[in-house]
Structures are given as C-alpha cells and as structure tokens.
C-alpha cells in the first residue's frame, strides 16, 4: 500500500509542478528604440496594396512603408503647469518595397528627410489621438500616409494636452499658448529622438507646418512660437481653421441653433477651467453638469452631440441668457479675442487652404485672416487658395465641399505644395 501512495505522490507532484507553467510566450520582441516606442510598422507592399484597393494609388505609384514612434515630451499648459504628453513620429521606410522605391528612399535619406508637423483636427475621444489611433489601425489614410509614405517626409503629430499620455488633463481646446507649446515642445523632443535613433533628419531641420480645422488654428499658433525660437520653417499651410475665435463665437451666440453643439461647448468648458470661471456662467443646466463626463476622453463627437442641444439660448438652450445677451462685455469674449492666432507677422510663406463650401467654419474666416495678415500685419506672403479650385484647377468651379469632405483633398494639396517647395530647397528632390 505504501508503494501506491509513493507513486501517487510522485505523479501528483509532477502534475502540479508542470501545471504551473507554459502559459506565456514571454516578453514581446518589438524593436527597441531610445526615448520612445515603436507603435506601428507598415511595410510598403501592404500599404501600397491597400492604397490601390482604395483607388489612391496605382502600381506605378511610389509608396514607402512607414514606422511610427510614440515619443513622450514635456510641455506646459496655459497656466504654466508642466504636463507630460505624447506624440507620434512617422518615418518612411522601404521594407518590402520594389527596387526603385528602395533606391529613391535611400537617395532621399542620404540628403536628409524634412519634417512635416501636422496638427490634428478636433477630437474628443482619446482613441482618436494620433498616438492611440495609429497603433490600432493601418487603414490607408491620415497625414502619416500622405506626407511620409506618399511624399517622403518625416511626419510629426503631437497629441495635444488632454490626449495620449496627458489624457488626465482636460483638453486645452483652442487655447493659443497650450496649443503652441505642445507642438513646439513635441517637435523639440522628436528632433532629439531622431538624433538618438539615427533617423536621417536633414541637417537644417526644415519644417513644413500644417493642420486642418482645429489643427489649422494650432498650426498658426505654433508658427508664431517656432519663428520666435528661430526654427527653420519652410512653409505653413493652415487649413480651414477657426483662426478668429471672437467673430465665430459672436455669430454662434447670435444664432438660434447650432448643428454641432459639441465644439462650442468644448470651448466654453476648456475656457472656464483655464481662466478659473464656473462653467455655469456660460452653459445652462442640465448640460453644464454633464460636461466633465462628456469631455473625459471616452466619447466621440457624435456621442457628445447627442447629450447636448442644438438650441443656442433661452429655455432648454445650451448657453446661459447672461452670456448670450452680454457676450461683448464678458470675460469669455475677452479671452477668445486674446486667443486669436492672427496677431503676428509670419516670416515664412503661409499658403492657407479652405473649402468654399465649408459648412462648419465659414470660408470668410480665412479671407478675414489673410486680409489681417497682409493688410494690417504686413506679412510678406500669406496666400489663400480655395481647395475646390486647387483640385479642379478651375477658378470658376461649381464644386463645393463641406468641412468633413474637404479634409482629405486639403491634405493632398498641402502635400503637393510641400513637395514642390522642397524641390526649391537645397534638398532638391
């Protein structure tokens, strides 16, 4: 009988011992980089076949692959508080590319790659932040593909304060200082990252600056700071941005309804927190109490819009009667005016793009911006092109694109402008 128990004990010991292991393949073997993290690597062949499927390329189009790195950076918000944030650097690669594409990229790398700093448009969900969304999708769209894979630039996309690593902070929405700080501080961190990881940035660190919608506003805010800090800005292409916040708010508050209430509610919420006011001074209940939850980074714009109202004022309206009737004398008006990004004289050329058919930010905002830059601030070169005209090459075109539909063609026009401009620089390609 003893022997039976001995056998049992041996068997069970073996069983238990081996039962404790073998359920984990071990550490991930993602390529290590200094001062950041590789978050996406899309080879040329995969990206090209997807672009061909979407009709954005054909078999003769040069399509580079890309690697995307998440890079942490430190910045400061409007109140001088230090914020740990993040952003993405997208670098063109020739993995699984044909011989001609490999050769072309090698030539460009030998001379150095220029930077495109792309400022993203309005987002509310953290999943849409550049450093988060690129990790989850390789769908052939986005600035990284247009600028890096189709045009051979290194693309930088900062997550603004409120997203990515700084998601615990409220979104610093349409705030000039925070916006400019995050873009410039991220660019500095990205340049240091490139150096640490032998990414072949052109020695003169040429920067092409762009952004759509909120990103257009941020691009101009950043341009002022970049130029003040002597960065080598080759060209800026702000696209369809709300550069003049005061007239936009004035127009909204004098209207009865608004199609997309989440934008103005976000401005009110962000400004109340930044300038230490009670949001109830601007937004009526029950909406005011909902704002912390609506803007905590978990919801998308359509989800937030459903929780708000399209009615601007009066009973059941979004804004308080007090702000609707006394806007001109309010702190809100003063701060919006102060956050206008049309308050400096750009040195580098500015090629503004805006769709004539924009249904969210009126084309006239860009016209007024250009007019102010040229006629009041004596800017050297600020030019405005309607996107419909740029893509049809017909000044009389009847084509009209709304704010959403305008984004992709705007980026393609900007990429063309940047590539054309690059040929005039010492890079020459």
């Amino acid at each position, binding site marked *: 009988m003893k022997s039976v128990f001995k056998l049992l004990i041996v068997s069970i010991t073996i069983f238990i011992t081996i039962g404790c292991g073998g359920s984990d393949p071990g550490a991930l073997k993602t390529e290590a980089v200094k001062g950041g993290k590789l978050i996406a690597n*899309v080879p040329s062949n995969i990206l090209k076949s997807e672009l061909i499927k979407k009709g954005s390329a054909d078999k003769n189009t040069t399509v580079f692959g890309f690697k995307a790195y998440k890079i942490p950076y430190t910045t400061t918000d409007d109140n001088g508080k230090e914020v740990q944030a993040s952003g993405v650097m997208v670098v063109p690669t020739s993995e699984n590319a044909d011989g001609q594409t490999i050769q072309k990229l090698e030539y460009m790398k030998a001379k150095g790659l220029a930077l495109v700093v792309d400022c993203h448009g309005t987002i509310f969900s953290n999943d849409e932040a550049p450093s988060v969304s690129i990790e989850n999708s390789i769908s052939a769209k986005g600035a990284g593909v247009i600028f890096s894979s189709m045009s051979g630039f290194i693309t930088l996309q900062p997550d603004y304060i409120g997203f990515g690593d700084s998601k615990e902070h409220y979104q610093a929405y349409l705030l000039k200082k925070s916006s400019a700080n995050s873009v410039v501080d991220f660019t500095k961190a990205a340049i240091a990252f490139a150096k640490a990881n032998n990414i072949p940035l052109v020695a003169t660190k040429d920067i092409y600056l762009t952004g759509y919608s909120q990103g257009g506003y941020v691009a101009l805010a950043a341009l002022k700071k970049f130029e003040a800090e002597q960065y080598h800005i080759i060209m800026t292409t702000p696209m369809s941005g709300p550069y003049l916040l005061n007239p936009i708010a004035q127009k909204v508050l004098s209207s009865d309804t608004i199609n997309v209430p989440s934008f103005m509610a976000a401005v009110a919420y962000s400004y109340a927190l930044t300038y230490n006011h009670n949001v109830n001074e601007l937004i009526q209940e029950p909406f005011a109490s909902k704002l912390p939850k609506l803007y905590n980074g978990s919801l998308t714009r359509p989800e937030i819009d459903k929780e708000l109202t399209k009615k601007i004022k009066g009973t059941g309206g979004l804004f308080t009667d007090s702000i609707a009737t006394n806007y001109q004398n309010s702190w809100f008006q003063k701060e919006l005016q102060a956050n206008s990004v049309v308050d400096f004289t750009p040195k580098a050329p500015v090629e503004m793009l805006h769709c004539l058919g924009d249904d969210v930010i009126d084309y006239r905002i860009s016209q007024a911006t250009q007019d102010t830059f040229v006629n009041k601030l004596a800017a050297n070169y600020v030019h405005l092109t309607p996107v419909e005209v740029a893509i049809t090459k017909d000044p009389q075109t009847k084509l009209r694109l709304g704010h959403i539909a305008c984004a992709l063609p705007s980026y393609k026009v900007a990429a063309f402008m940047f590539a054309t401009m690059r040929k005039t620089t010492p890079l020459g390609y």
Partner: protein
Amino acid sequence: MKNILISSITAISIASGAAYKLPEQSLKGTALSAANVASCNGADCAYYNPANISFLDANSQYFEGGLTFIHLPKVSYKGEQRLISGSVDATAKTLTEDVAIPYLHYVSKAYGNLRYSINLTVPAGLSKRWNSPVEKLYAQEFTLKTIMINPSVAYKINSNLSLALGANIVYSEGKVYSDGKDVGIPLKREMEGDSIDYGYNLAASWHLDNGLKLAATYRSKVKLSEEGKANLYFGGVGKKYDASVNIYIPAALTLAVSKDIKNWTLEFVYERTFWSSYKTLDFNYKENLPATLQSFDTPIDKNWKDTNTFRVGAQYRYNKKLTLMAGYSYDQSPIPQKYLSYELPDSNAHIFSAGFKYQQNKNLSWGIAVLYDYKTKRSVDNNANGLKGKFTKGGAILITSGFDYKF
C-alpha cells in the same frame, strides 16, 4: 527544475495515431499496435481496459513503467499556396521531431470484488514545425502537449464479468507560433496556453469459459480549454493579449475480442473516434483586436469527421520466458481534404509493430517493441486554406522499452 520536468516528461509533442491521438501507452501497446484491450493482463490494463484488472491475480500488485522514443520524419509538401497576392510555390519539408515520453501503470490488490488502478500517460500530442517561408505563415510551430492521470475502479460482478469506471485528469499545454515576414505578410503570433481538464472512462470485460474474451471501453471527450497569453505582431510591433482556445481530445469507443489458442493470443479491436466535435479552431481574446490583427481572430473551419480504426494483434508464447508480439492497424484520418492544413497534414495510416517480452524472474519482466506508422500520400486541391499540392512521407517510428513488476 520545472523546465527540466516539462521537457523530459511532457515533451510529448507527437502524434502517432490519427490526427493527434497517441494510443501506444505501454510495451504491449506498442508491440501490438494497441490491440491490447480484451487480452490485456498486466499493469497496462489500467489504461487499455481497467475492467480486466478484476481478472488479475487478486493478491498481487502490478506496476509497469517505460519510455517510448518517437521519431517523426519530415513531412514533404510539394505544391502551391494561395496568398492574397496570388499563388506561390510552397514546396517544403517540416522539421523532424524526436521525443521520449514516459508511462506508468499501477494496479492494486483486490479488495473483495473491488480493485483500483492508476496510470500516468500521454493520451494526445502534436507538433509540427516548419521553417519554410510560406508554411511559417501558418504553422511555424504548432504544438499540443498533454499528460493524463487516470485512476479507475473495477468491480468484479462474477468470475466472468467485470465493470470499471475512471476519471481522466488532463494537463495540457498548447503553443502556436506563426510568422509571415518571409512572404511579405507582416503578421506574427507567439501564443502559449495551458489547462487542466477532466473526463471519464468506462470499461466492461466479459471472459467466456471457452477462452474468448470480449471487452468494450469508452473514454469521454476532454475539452482542453487552453488559456494563456498571445504576443501578436503587425510589422514587428507586438502587443500581449489574454487569449484562449478550445481543443478536444475526442471521445472514443472501443470494441475488442480476443482468443487464446494454444501458445497464441489473437485480438481484434474496432475503435470509433468521435472527432466530429472538432468543428472550428477559434482563438478568443479578452479584448478586441485592432483591424491589423483581425486574421488572428477569424475562426478556422475544421469540420473533422468521426473515424474508424481496425487493429489486430498476435502474441506467441515461445517458451515460459519469452513472448513474441506483432500487430497491425489501419487508422483513418479525420481531416477532410478541404480542411487539411500545415499544422497537421494528416492522412490514413497503416501501422506495423512487433516486440518481445522476457520474464526475467517470477516478479520482473521486460521488453522492447517497435512500431512503424506509414502515412499514405495525400493530395489536396480546392482547399479552404489555399493549398494545392501533395503531402508525402511523414509517419512515425516508435521504440518502446518497458518493464513489468509484479509483487
């Protein structure tokens, strides 16, 4: 220590039976091609037919231990593989596999009409490793290791009839590695999981007075609920996920008849294995996978079929000390041609075996057996996994060395 145990005890990544079943669990099991059900008369009845332990010497205990060395030659594939970019030549060979697996069987004395047994065996296992560009995309390594403890109790109804009931406690480890980098597909998977699962077994033996022995055994399906982690990569960028997958050790019904004729014992076994419960291979993840990794979350159709296996075994008592044994079985593959894939390019098998057992003294005997598993060629076309070609070679060679101790 743990790693040593895993590699030496559960390095059992083989499949000498159809699909990934392993029926050779003792010296006689190997020598007789597992035609050792109705006639078994030693400790290995604990596995093959625990009802038979009632008919062993009531005052003795029985122990058997041994090792089976298994050599799996390369499987060759000559043909094409359909990829998204078109068909490519996928002609290649697997790596060879060489492993040793242990077994232990014990049968107690009789306690009245009751008697118990216990065994430690490896009821199933699989390993296919490919190092060729195309095949690596699907099965760089596909491994299933199992180890089972199987206690049983037998009740002797009368001097002719016995019934038995047992529990099957199975520990398993699964490993799935794949890598498409060499064919321009930037997907890579490193997945490992383990599980402890349960089943049962039943057995009945009827020994007729004319020397004819009849037996029926049934071993239930064991659902191996592998749970673990998966490192999934797109373009070399990986993320770790909680992952799980269900694999089955199928239920099996065995009907056996044996007859002693002078110095000979002959046995015929019919085995029905219920593979049809294996419909899909469906990996599950605790969180949603991004679009880039969706192909790892797509269920793979298997649609396996129930199979028949026919076994015959012959034992010849040459003298009081030496017994010679030989066996043959025909084993059907459960995998329809449409669903054949690289992780298990199985085909019907003809199995030939032989061995001997030598009685050293009144307590101890020992022996050696060898088994050759010949896999038939398998053509594949209109295949759901995109294969068009032919699998050849493969099979298995087993050498078992074991001893019996009666005390």
